């Protein structure tokens, strides 16, 4: 399969536009992305029904990045991202039940309800969160890469960040160190063209994020094309293991507003959004490929979507049954080793606990 558009490069040769795949992978891309899409739409409804609280950032539109990246790497490799983390978690093998339970603050959540939407983790599969501070996950990701190198385990770390985060100073600090130390890290800029309500060109003098590493090579990738993402990530992993950091700019799009309080329509036109949906949607691209290669019928794909829908609904129903955390959980996990210290609740004469 050919990638949609050529890769743009900075200080490196581009990988081939021809990506290898097979029917199985194509169908699994379709299924996984459809699940992600459906999950995010469902989260939207749950939020509106007040079952999800606080900040909630949805990933619909950007699914190809999570899916393409996973296809190129293994669970030994590490991934770290920002607060828009539901689908990355799912991509790493997290379950719908864990997602919805966490979103609703239930025991069954991947963080037992203590983290919330922005703080998903699945460390046993190399997913290190779920971070709320814009840009912070980039040095953290370089630190994961440091550990891979220290442990000589031939794995790499992917640090995902937005176009808004791309201007953060700590990114440049961490990149310089990573380049000096040849850390096997891939900086993945998910350029969805807006940081909240700010268009990329209003936040960056140079919105060519794949070039912003200056002395570090970079690749611009169609982030709506899961195969381009897969190809780029494979290429980047090889590069990182051999020669240290590289930047991948993923040209992508978020359909939803920034978070649930943002209608997402004051700073961009409805035409822009529907244009992307019609011409670049990552799921539709896969659907077309599957149909073009006669790997499944339209009906079969619709059935997959129905199935996915059912799975999501079932997960939600089950998550709703998951109990709220026990009150005693207020005082667990403050430390790994609580040293038997007494910690206080709001009224220390009423609530105090010995830390485990």
């Amino acid at each position, binding site marked *: 399969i050919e990638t949609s558009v050529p890769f743009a490069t900075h200080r490196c040769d581009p990988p081939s536009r021809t990506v290898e795949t097979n029917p199985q992978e194509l169908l699994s891309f379709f299924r996984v992305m459809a699940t992600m899409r459906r999950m995010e739409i469902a989260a939207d409804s749950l939020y509106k029904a007040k079952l*999800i*609280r*606080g*900040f909630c950032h949805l990933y619909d539109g950007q699914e190809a990045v999570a899916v393409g990246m996973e296809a190129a790497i293994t669970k030994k490799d590490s991934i770290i991202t920002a607060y828009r983390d539901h689908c990355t978690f799912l991509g790493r093998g997290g379950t719908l039940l864990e997602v919805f339970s*966490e979103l609703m*603050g*239930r025991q069954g959540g991947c*963080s037992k*309800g*203590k*983290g*919330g*939407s*922005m*703080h998903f983790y699945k460390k046993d599969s190399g997913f290190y969160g779920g*971070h*709320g*501070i*814009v*840009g912070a996950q980039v040095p953290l990701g370089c630190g994961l890469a440091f550990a891979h190198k220290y442990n000589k385990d031939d794995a790499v770390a992917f640090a995902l960040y937005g176009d*808004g*985060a791309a*201007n*953060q*100073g700590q990114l440049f600090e961490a990149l310089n160190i990573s380049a000096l130390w040849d850390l096997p890290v891939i900086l993945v800029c998910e350029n969805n063209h807006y*940081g*909240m*309500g*700010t268009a990329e060109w*209003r*936040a*960056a003098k140079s919105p060519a994020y794949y070039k912003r590493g200056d002395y570090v090579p970079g690749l611009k990738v169609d982030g709506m094309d899961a195969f381009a993402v897969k190809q780029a990530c494979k290429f980047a992993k090889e590069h990182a293991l051999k020669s240290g950091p590289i930047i991948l700019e993923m040209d992508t799009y978020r359909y939803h507003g920034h978070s649930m309080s943002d209608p997402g329509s*004051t*700073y961009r036109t409805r035409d822009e959004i529907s244009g992307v949906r019609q011409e670049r949607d990552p799921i539709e691209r896969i659907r077309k490929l599957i149909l073009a290669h006669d790997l499944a019928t339209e009906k079969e794909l619709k059935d997959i979507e129905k199935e996915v829908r059912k799975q999501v609904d079932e997960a939600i129903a089950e998550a709703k049954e998951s109990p*709220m*955390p026990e*009150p005693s*959980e*207020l*005082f667990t996990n*403050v430390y790994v080793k609580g040293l038997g210290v007494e*910690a*206080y*609740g*709001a*009224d*220390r*004469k*009423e*609530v*105090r606990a010995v830390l485990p």
Partner: protein
Amino acid sequence: MTVRDALNTALDEEMSADPKVFLMGEEVGEYQGAYKITKGLLDKYGPERVLDTPITEAGFTGIGVGAAYHGLKPVIEFMTFNFSMQAIDHIINSAAKSNYMSAGQMSVPIVFRGPNGAASGVGAQHSHCYAVWYASCPGLKVLAPYSSEDARGLLKAAIRDPDPVVFLENELLYGETFPVSAEVLDSSFCLPIGKAKIEKEGKDVTITAFSKMVGYALKAAEILAKDGISAEVINLRSIRPLDRNTINASVRKTNRLVTVEEGFPQHGVGAEICASVVEESFGYLDAPVERIAGADVPMPYAANLERLAVPQVEDISRNHLISGISEMYMWDPCYYWGGTAH
């Protein structure tokens, strides 16, 4: 008038009164503010005076402080104060200390403002209260409004003040409506920095609080009143300078003190108030000072845990806090502590 409108009109009036005042921060302009505090100001004052920044707090805060060195009067919005940590070196080292280090050459007339502390369902990284960190630092003034009157009067005072002011708002108060007098609405209105306000007089117990907790303290006082206990509620308004005089005068009258805050307890605002009262009014205290504060844990997301993690009205109104037990425990603290071993 909502607190949001109070802040918005305060900004508007001070910008209109002084051309040196300008606003800077993430989404303050075209987006009208993440919490709409700066709504309409870009339209009114233009992009030279209302500046949307990239998400780079260290950079734009440093730029703000530098502009203040030169005599401008920046108002820097942090989308929330959690992100002020990215720029905290500029607040402490570049802003707070410069006037002193330069023996008065380098004044820094700047305001750092934004929502602080716990909101609702936003988890551990977005719920930190920074009152204590900033208030520990000489060179800064630290204000925390509760009502619309506070918001207007203190923000206007902060902008007019020649020193760096950290102005701690509360997201959950933005939408709350408070009655305001004509005086408060006058564009000349301004509140003194460093003075607390007695929101409700009382004689049996003093309750200190700031920001959202003032409302809780007032509700608790109502409940206590039903039990015949008359609570005096002090709205601190200013965390630095702390109005020791008002607090001590109140405690000397009521002989009992409960401090309330949403932040973490250790080295908290309550600890400082307790120490101040012990230093100045020890002989007047009929009972130990009670501290009500955020639970000493990172903020959990789940609604039930979150509720446990911040003070509720009943934590303040809980009757035993101020029941007449002082004589007893004076000689038998173990009894007082319900047998908990210490």
